[in-house]
């Protein structure tokens, strides 16, 4: 499986470093909303690069034909590959353009407790950004948000992913042959 192929980092180091980074952001911005936004955009920047690594090493040979397949690949292959856990796909909407990723075991939130004054913090918002960034690189514009969060008292982490549009594969305006 793809999990075996990628190099790993100590889980505690990863978790604690992420925690230290979030703490630093809180110190810098002093506003929970701004921290959430920053986490998302950092995730986005990770996602647009991470997709290369994913496509190179995941061994997903056939391109996904619809969002259902994409959702499964994200939940079962990508999450396993980069976080070491799998997510469940559920709660499809009627026309199949939105689904939820349920994360029962989130390594980011190990050792973490939210103090009451930061109850608005979306601690794992980075993941939303990563998904958005990665899918945008394969022509899918999605929006992601954390709807349920273990740190805020829910029983599971739920990330809602909504497909906005499939982007056309077009050349940049500046692109000229030769």
């Amino acid at each position, binding site marked *: 499986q793809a999990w075996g192929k990628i190099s790993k980092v*100590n889980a505690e180091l990863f978790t604690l470093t992420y925690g230290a980074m979030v*703490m630093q952001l809180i110190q810098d911005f002093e506003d929970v909303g701004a921290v959430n936004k920053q986490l998302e955009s950092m995730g986005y920047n990770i996602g647009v690069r991470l997709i290369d690594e994913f496509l190179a090493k995941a061994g997903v040979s056939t391109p996904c034909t619809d969002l259902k397949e994409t959702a499964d690949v994200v939940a079962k292959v990508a999450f396993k590959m980069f976080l070491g856990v799998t997510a469940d796909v559920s709660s499809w909407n009627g026309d199949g353009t939105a689904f939820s990723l349920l994360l029962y075991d989130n390594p980011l939130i190990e050792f973490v407790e939210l103090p009451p004054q930061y109850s608005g913090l979306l601690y794992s918002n980075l993941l939303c950004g990563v998904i958005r960034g990665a899918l945008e690189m394969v022509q899918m514009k999605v929006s992601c948000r954390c709807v349920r969060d273990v740190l805020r008292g829910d029983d599971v982490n739920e990330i809602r992913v909504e497909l906005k549009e499939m982007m056309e594969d077009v050349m940049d305006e500046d692109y000229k042959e030769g």
Partner: protein
Amino acid sequence: DGSDTGGSLVEPNPASVGAGHQLLPSDQAQQMEARIESMGYEVGYRLVERTCQRRWMGGDQLEAIKFVCKDLWSDLFKKQVDKLQTDHQGTFVLKDSNFRWTSRYAEDDTAGSRDLVNRLLQLPCGLVRGALANLGLVAVVRASFLDDRGGMSDLPAVSFTIKIRVGGSNQ
């Protein structure tokens, strides 16, 4: 104890956050490095508390350094430190000839790339300082990737200089 974290020394400055790896004015760059270092300190301090539960047996300064070189290093970087030198007066030099976090960096002898690596290395510096603090040693840690002649050495090779502050030991 080591509860005086470096974090309080750093003034919040949203402007430089997320600035990525452009070249920054030196005071800003310094501030950023200090911040990365203090993040490392936090992580190292907490991390070693967990590592110790499994392995640390107690001992003197040298034992603590050895613990860093062997146990901590293999936890963090999947290998041990290659070479440990000391002057027996509280200064230790840890040489890692293939440091994991720099092994993907292209060799490029420009100032910009040096700054970048320097900034990156602040994190492990902080990690080591935090780890030692929790083992009861107050230290200053500096990383260097320069060889003896002052040029860039083969990049994955990094050395860390640890200076234990005299009287900083309480073990």
